[in-house]
């Protein structure tokens, strides 16, 4: 590649086309204010989640070790008040971002693996296999997600793992449909025919030709998937399917609602976790929509 292009470029820095398009994408993205706002929110929460263990430890989070006032309203020492066990709500909020984000990200990865796996296979094998897989996807789309996720998580038992699995099992369908459509488009292009003519097998075409070409789409859809996954995580945890000893935003709201903070009018315990969920979900949604707009040529002419 470089050998062929080098004489023409004569001295100027030769950039592989892939990075050139990435730069163009970044420039277009930076022009969208809502996308940047979303990115800033996400960056702030990620940094908080990463540095949280440096200054928050079991001393502040373990119910048996804390000795603050119970359900106290905000004060200088506790900027967001305390919960029913005397823990600082602010510290719980910061620490909670870790598990909430982690479950959201892992569930999304699992969703993308299942969804794009099924999508690529369904798109590649057009015949009976593809039709069956698409029917399977349609059946899952028709199922109401929340009752299925609740049932699955309840059967698997309380905890982060079963919530992650429940989210992935109920949310891969959108990705599968999207990736299948894209696979069909990629497979119609000449370089796939060329690979096939050169003797590439099914596995090789799916891995070496289709996967790299649908990857950008998978990544784009991931931002919107994370938003949904984090909402589902909060909901399932709120309903009591999470690990009661862990500190997450959903768990905080669960304890606030079912353990008396609610009747005590403890708004400082109820507002912050919900606002945090709202901000992060909104952040992912804004970024996802901005990326979608930048990549979709049809949307560019539209206001």
């Amino acid at each position, binding site marked *: 590649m470089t050998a062929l292009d080098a004489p023409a470029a004569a001295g100027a820095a030769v950039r592989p086309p892939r990075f050139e398009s990435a730069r163009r994408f970044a420039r277009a993205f930076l022009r969208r204010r809502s996308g940047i706002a979303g990115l800033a929110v996400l960056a702030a929460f990620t940094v908080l989640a990463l540095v949280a263990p440096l200054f928050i430890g079991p001393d502040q989070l373990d119910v048996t070790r804390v000795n603050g006032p119970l359900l106290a309203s905000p004060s200088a020492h506790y900027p967001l008040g305390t919960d029913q066990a005397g823990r600082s709500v602010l510290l719980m909020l910061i620490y909670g971002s870790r598990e909430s984000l982690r479950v959201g990200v892992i569930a999304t990865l699992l969703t993308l693996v299942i969804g794009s796996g099924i999508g690529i296979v369904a798109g590649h094998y057009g015949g009976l296999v593809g039709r069956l897989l698409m029917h399977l996807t349609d059946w899952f789309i*028709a199922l109401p997600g929340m009752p299925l996720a609740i049932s699955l998580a309840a059967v698997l038992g309380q905890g982060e793992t079963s919530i992650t699995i429940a989210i992935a099992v109920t949310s891969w369908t959108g990705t599968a449909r*999207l990736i299948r459509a894209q696979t069909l488009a990629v497979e119609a292009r000449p370089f796939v025919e060329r690979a096939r003519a050169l003797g590439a097998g099914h596995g090789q075409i799916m891995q070496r030709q289709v996967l790299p070409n649908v990857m950008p789409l998978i990544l784009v859809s991931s931002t919107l998937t994370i938003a949904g996954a984090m909402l589902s995580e909060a909901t399932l945890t709120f309903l009591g399917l999470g690990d009661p000893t862990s500190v997450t935003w959903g768990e905080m709201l669960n304890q606030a609602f079912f353990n008396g903070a609610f009747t005590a009018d403890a708004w400082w315990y109820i507002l912050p976790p919900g606002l945090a969920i709202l901000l992060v979900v909104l952040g992912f949604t804004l970024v996802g929509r901005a990326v979608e707009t930048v990549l979709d040529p049809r949307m560019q002419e539209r206001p």
Partner: protein
Amino acid sequence: MTVSSVAPGADGVGADAVEAEPVPPPGPGPATAAGRRAPRLPWPGYLGTKLVGAVVSFFVVLVIGFVLFNLMPADPVRTMTRGRPVSPEQMAQLRVQLGLNRPVWARFLSYLNDTVHGNLGYSWQYQQSVGSLVMSRLGPTLLLMGTSFLISVVLGLWLGMRSGWRAGSLFDRLTSGTALALWSVPTFWLGMILLIVFSVGIGPVSGILPAGGMSDPTLSQTGMVHYLDVARHLILPAVTLVLVAYAQYVTIMRSSIIEQLGSPYLLTARAKGLSDAAVRRKHAAPNALLPSMTMIFMQLGLLVSGAVTVETVYSWPGLGYLTYEALKIPDLPLLQGTFIVFSASVIIMNLLADLLYRVLDPRVRAT
């Protein structure tokens, strides 16, 4: 681009969730080789295809329910007797009583037979049949979901139509921004906030609406007083569900209207001298409504999800609250019952949407 002629493999490329061709719950696809131009099936054939599709979907639900609740739990007897002193002999006897010693296929067949005959098992927690429990909770859920569905569809379609027609205007940006923010709010948290503001009260201002339940037990349970009381209890849960659900419909209708914007028939209507409002209402809206209605019914599952959390927050005595009560134990037969009933109702609504689409589509009515 009609629902009945979506062949597997004929989807738009890179279609996003909103613009993707809605695909009905599958049945044997009527069009394969002929693709999009396939002639429409006559009514009986169409009805048959859709019915078969719905039945197959329901069968899949039953299979999932069986795997989930009868095969996956390691030992239902242990779950049932958790925390109680039970001897191994008693547990063995309980297993025989529940039929757990029979082969899987025999259990599946009797499970199918039971479910189809409306026998959904026996709740561990309430010690009564799941069928009667579910039936007694169906009414409140239908009331709550029906009310919120109607309000949010009307509100969402209207806002979506107005904002799509003037895409990019201040009104559009406000509407879309609000819809986006409300979509990002966790439903249960929104419910909690409304509950605090309107029922518990903030500071010196006391609440004006009831905190939960469906009626005040101290009032008479019949007549006008009762209806007004139920309506008062319905306000907060319904408003919560509407706020969460209407955003979806705004998005759907907005993009559907935008699809129509450049159409030649709108130009014709304007050339005839019709006012802008008349073009929007009489020409653009009906054409944008068709695909929107299908999408709206396809997304009923979201309303069901919202109902589970909203009913939990407001202790509304419906199926969603029953699901919550079942998962606390966890009461597997009861969970299975609510899962099957929720899924069945979504399948039925999708079937109705397919039939409705066919009735409403003027291209079919004309022939």
